[in-house]
């Protein structure tokens, strides 16, 4: 139904190559997150799937059909924009019904669908208002309503939550995930926030400078990052990366160990370290320590940890949790 695949999809603007060539297969009903730093091409890739950007070469297939040259409206996809992109001169009702109006549906049917979508999103009392009279969260719902009402094969989200405040963001995240469960449609979600990616995705696509670095479920990426980039990107706080003599001991150019996989002891351990700074979050404490030849490291301590500046501690990594990378930044798997 809603399968989407990219075959060597390439995008270049003259000499500037944004996407060298991407291959990707998305299954029907999957929630896929495109994640990566700013400028990595995730939005471009999304827009290529939507049809808002032409492909320089390669193909896009939706449901097995070649949609590479089809207009956006013929692809059976809906998009929720980062800035919501609501029609400012139309009411909420007008915004939601516009797509149906373009499709030529009879008035009665449009009314019914709009009413249903509005009810689902708690927008019924706002139907006659204009976008400028709504709050950020409400506008977002209208954007989602506009997308849902056309019953598309797939939903595309372009950083929809980045303009909302933190509390609202958490709520909307859950609502979108619930929506995915209820509708069962394929969803592609673009974000630079790896927490969103980890919590929402069935599979994550990590992009770096236009190249797909790795595709996998959140836990796959967490436990088995294929490259230094993915290792450093996924997981918060960042994985500790150690080079030099210490890394050589493990037969690698760089080794990585996550803050939560280091055991702390006052008496003994693999690496001695001095506490420089502590972040007390209540549920966890993050210690920023100077570990000599290992450099600066971050360590997680559970609960409340009484840290004194310059105190000496010892860190021991869990052996099975040490990641090894070669000189090209690729993971070494025994």
């Amino acid at each position: 139904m809603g399968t989407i695949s990219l075959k060597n999809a390439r995008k270049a603007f003259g000499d500037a190559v944004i996407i060298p060539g991407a291959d990707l297969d998305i299954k029907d009903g999957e929630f896929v997150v495109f994640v990566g730093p700013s400028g990595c091409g995730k939005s471009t890739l999304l827009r290529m799937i939507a049809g808002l950007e032409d492909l320089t070469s390669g193909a896009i297939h939706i449901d097995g059909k070649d949609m590479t040259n089809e207009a956006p409206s013929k692809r059976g996809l809906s998009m929720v924009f980062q800035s919501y992109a609501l029609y400012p001169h139309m009411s909420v009702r007008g915004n939601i019904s516009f797509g149906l109006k373009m499709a030529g549906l009879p008035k009665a049917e449009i009314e019914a669908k709009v009413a249903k979508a509005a009810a689902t999103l708690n927008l019924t009392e706002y139907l006659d208002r204009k976008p400028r009279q709504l709050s950020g969260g409400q506008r977002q719902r209208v954007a989602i309503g506009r997308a849902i009402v056309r019953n598309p094969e797939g939903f595309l989200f372009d950083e929809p939550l980045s303009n909302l405040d933190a509390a609202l963001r958490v709520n909307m995240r859950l609502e979108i995930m619930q929506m995915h469960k209820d509708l069962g449609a394929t969803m592609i979600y673009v974000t630079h926030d790896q927490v969103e990616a980890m919590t929402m995705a069935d599979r994550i696509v990590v992009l770096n400078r236009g190249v797909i670095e790795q595709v996998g479920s959140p836990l796959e990426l967490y436990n088995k990052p294929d490259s230094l980039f993915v290792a450093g990107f996924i997981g918060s706080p960042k994985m500790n990366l150690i080079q030099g003599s210490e890394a050589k001991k493990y037969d690698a150019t760089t080794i990585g160990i996550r803050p939560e996989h280091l055991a702390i002891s006052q008496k003994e351990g693999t690496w001695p370290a001095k506490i420089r700074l502590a972040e007390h979050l209540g549920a966890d404490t993050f210690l920023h320590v100077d570990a000599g030849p290992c450099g600066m490291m971050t360590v997680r301590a559970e609960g409340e940890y009484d840290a004194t500046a310059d105190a000496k501690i010892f860190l021991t990594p869990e052996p099975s949790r040490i990641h090894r990378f070669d000189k090209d930044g690729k993971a070494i798997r025994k």
Partner: protein
Amino acid sequence: MARTVSTRRKLIVTAIAWAIGLLIFFPILWTILTSFKTEGEAIALPPKFLFFDWTLENYGVVQERSDYLKFAMNSIMLALGSTFFALVIAIPSAWAMAFAPGRRTKDLLMWMLSTKMMPPVGALLPIYLIFRDFGLLDTRGGIITVLMLLNLPILIWMLYTYFKEIPGEILEASRMDGASLGKELLYVLTPMAIPGIASTLLLNIILAWNEAFWTLALTTKDAAPLTQFIASYSSPEGLFWAKLSAASTMAIAPILVLGWFAQKQLVRGLTFGAVK
């Protein structure tokens, strides 16, 4: 400033500002006052500000004798006509350059700007001769064409800057919603562009109404707008100040009103969007 300014300072500034404002506005104010005087009062010294015999006779005389209405009608037709035709050409051009730019668009815009900078005297002779030989002298159609071409660069630039301010994502959303190009233009772009188009329209009316080179050079009586009409008062017979004032007041009043509403548009249009 979030804090309030002291009342004393406010009053001092008020006094200064009003004094200077009235000083600058004075010639206009004086003209309006003079229009209600008799000719005798108009040249009387010392000049009277309020206590004179207010009369409307000048307005009556101006309208009857010199067929003022015809000139006013010409001004209106020239302003509206040139605006209409200019917009018909300018809107598609500005749309294309804002939304479907090519590699040459920037150069094209700069070239259009440069045509505005050419001194009118460089084109005066040929245009005059062409008009003469084609019987276009002193015709409304001729002047409308000239005014349209004269202001086309300003209009295109102005519309361009307004169109660029329309968020592209909204147009993309309409495409995702299945709008064909025509429907996109009709249902989404045009409603959002209306304020910009209205502003541009306003600006052109002002510019066309006040244009005082081509209207003076290419018209005599049939197509003469108010600029030419007022100019004819420069070689008058006898007393005429009060009548001149009446004619002038009527000629400038519409633009003073329009201009008050169009200040922002004037800034944007006349600086080619450099100041907004």
